[in-house]
């Protein structure tokens, strides 16, 4: 059994016009020390998935169903008090914007010490010692001085280093990083990502990396999920998905990378935009934008319109697409005929 097992997770937002389903039937798992990437457009549900792991979704969001098993413990039914022991301790988070993540009126030291004190019986002196050690690990210049500084005295990149240090404070099993480099300078992005990767490898910490940067995912993670409109539509080993995407949406995403376009021509894009979660298309949520549907014949096209696709396995990957299912079947038949 994996360290973290998420099964059929269903997250909804209770709005006036009725519930909006932000996550549907999301399943994935994470082994100790494994690095998993979650990619998708804005609004696909990546962040909701990350926040729901620690039940930190903002009201009116709530977990409507499914299970999150972490180290043998079911998290969805845990009380807030019990969850607090997991948060920041066994599973910690790194947020998107380092300029907003640290409290502006508390010193770096106060914000580190309080985290240690929330989880361990420890003196302030000891806690400061541990904090200093973690600040050294994230390679901040003159770490002793940083403890008594306020966030505004640090640059964005340094603040993200502090946040990584806070995430590592209690030697967690998993770090959930929600677009940790999006708000940073391009030059700083690579440094921070390299640091995060190095520390995760060194301490054997599992990483759930949420991003829309396919380049980062391919460099850092071993497995990845692609999300669309609240569902996982493709998952498998990162290398295989990047090299040979099955789902038309994943193909579109990879095709949209600037490297994939011929120089001088327009960049490739997926036509249309992601549907609103409160008004999802029937059947496969991607079908109005899908290039496969246009090429499909009548009965297949009907399936895309009417039925939510199941996962089909292709090699080590799984994709939720009617067309992929058909292709796998048709490939199998000629292969058998040849024998």
């Amino acid at each position: 059994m994996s360290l973290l097992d998420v099964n059929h997770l269903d997250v909804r937002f209770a709005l006036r016009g009725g519930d909006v389903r932000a996550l549907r039937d999301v399943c994935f798992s994470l082994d100790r020390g494994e690095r998993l990437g979650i990619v998708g457009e804005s609004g696909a549900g990546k962040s909701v998935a990350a926040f729901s792991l620690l039940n930190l979704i903002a009201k009116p969001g709530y977990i409507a169903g499914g299970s999150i098993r972490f180290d043998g413990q079911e998290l969805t039914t845990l009380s807030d008090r019990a969850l607090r022991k997991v948060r920041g301790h066994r599973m910690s988070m790194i947020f998107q914007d380092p300029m907003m993540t640290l409290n502006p009126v508390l010193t770096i030291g106060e914000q580190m010490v309080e985290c240690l004190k929330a989880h361990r019986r420890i003196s302030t002196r000891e806690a400061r010692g541990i904090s200093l050690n973690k600040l050294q690990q994230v390679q901040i210049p003159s770490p002793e001085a940083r403890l008594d500084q306020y966030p505004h005295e640090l640059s964005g990149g340094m603040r993200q280093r502090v946040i990584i240090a806070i995430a590592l404070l209690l030697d967690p099993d998993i770090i959930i990083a929600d677009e940790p480099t999006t708000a940073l300078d391009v030059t700083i992005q690579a440094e921070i990502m390299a640091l995060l990767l190095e520390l995760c490898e060194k301490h054997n910490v599992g990483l759930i990396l949420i991003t829309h940067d396919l380049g980062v995912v391919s460099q850092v993670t071993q497995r990845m999920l692609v999300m669309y409109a609240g569902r996982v539509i493709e998952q498998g080993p990162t290398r295989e998905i990047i090299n040979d995407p099955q789902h038309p949406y994943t193909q579109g995403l990879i095709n949209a990378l600037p490297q994939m376009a011929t120089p001088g021509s327009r960049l490739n894009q997926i036509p249309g935009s992601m549907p609103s979660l409160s008004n999802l298309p029937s059947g496969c949520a991607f079908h109005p934008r899908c290039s496969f549907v246009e090429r499909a014949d009548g009965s297949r096209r009907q399936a895309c319109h009417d039925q939510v696709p199941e996962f089909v396995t292709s090699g080590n990957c799984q994709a939720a697409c009617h067309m992929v299912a058909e292709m796998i079947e048709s490939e199998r038949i000629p292969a058998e005929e040849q024998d």
Partner: protein
Amino acid sequence: MIAFLIKRLFHALLVMFVISVIAFAIQDNLGDPIQQMVGQSVPESEREALREELGLNDPFLVQYLRFAVNAAHFDFGYSYVFNQPTTDVVLRHLPATLELVAATTFLIIALSVPIGVYSAIKPRAWLSRFFMGVSIVGISIPVFLTAIVLIQIFAIGVSWSPFPADTGWGAWLNDLISTEGGMPAYGRGDPVHVFGTWETNFASLEGLTYLVLPAISLASIMLPLFIRLIRAEMLEVLQSDYVKFARAKGISPRRIYFLHALKNTMLPVITVGGVQIGTLVAYTILTETVFQWPGMGLMFLDAIERSDIPLIVTYLMIVGLIFVITNTLVDLIYGLINPTVKLTGKPA
């Protein structure tokens, strides 16, 4: 720190200069002081002589400079009515007003912070909705009306019997909605003398009861304002990433609300609060009139009625000074709480 204080002192002098020009300029437009000083029968030649003697015929600039030099020595002349130095008259009335403002400020701080925080943490609770509803009513009703209603209910007493008094439950309900009154609502009672012109209502329980109704009515507009301000700020802060991050660190809700969120909430509240304390001093005019509280506000209204121009000018100058001092203090406190403001000029 020193540089900051010097800068603030310079600002303060500038503000006081502007106030003094305005205060001095209105003198000319508040009627003829000679008419206030002498009787009907005094002939015009004597009036002219008096005018010449008092220097009222000098050019505006000369008069103003004379006024400014004296004002710098806290000498604003003699009150026509009291025939005493105006500073003495104002100082005699100042403690009563300051005590009323202090009691009101205490009331506002003690109530607005917990109520504001509570209604931000639990915005849907019926108690929060109740507070929000009441606060709108509080803001909408003018101070003097609140004061009169308070006097009617708690000082005079209300006996109301809409229910049949001959039945047990009716009498009980009538008792419930009727009040006995008896709260003091006139003047300061018997304040305890401290030193100089300062007498205090804070020294005895009886003295404190005299403060209750005036302080409540003075707070009736500011308190709802601050409850709403704190609630709005707190709601915003609770949405912030650093509060979410504190949750993700596993910090207890109490620490998140009262350290992480409240400290950030208070920054704008302190700024507004500084200005409002000055405004409170001005609002005392209404409250002191209704309760006949012998403070500066009542004195000022009296001075206007009797065209006691030197006293009016002194009042304006002193209230201006109070404004300037409180704002400087608030800026100092703000600098202590908000680390991004550097007062000390120590290298970062």
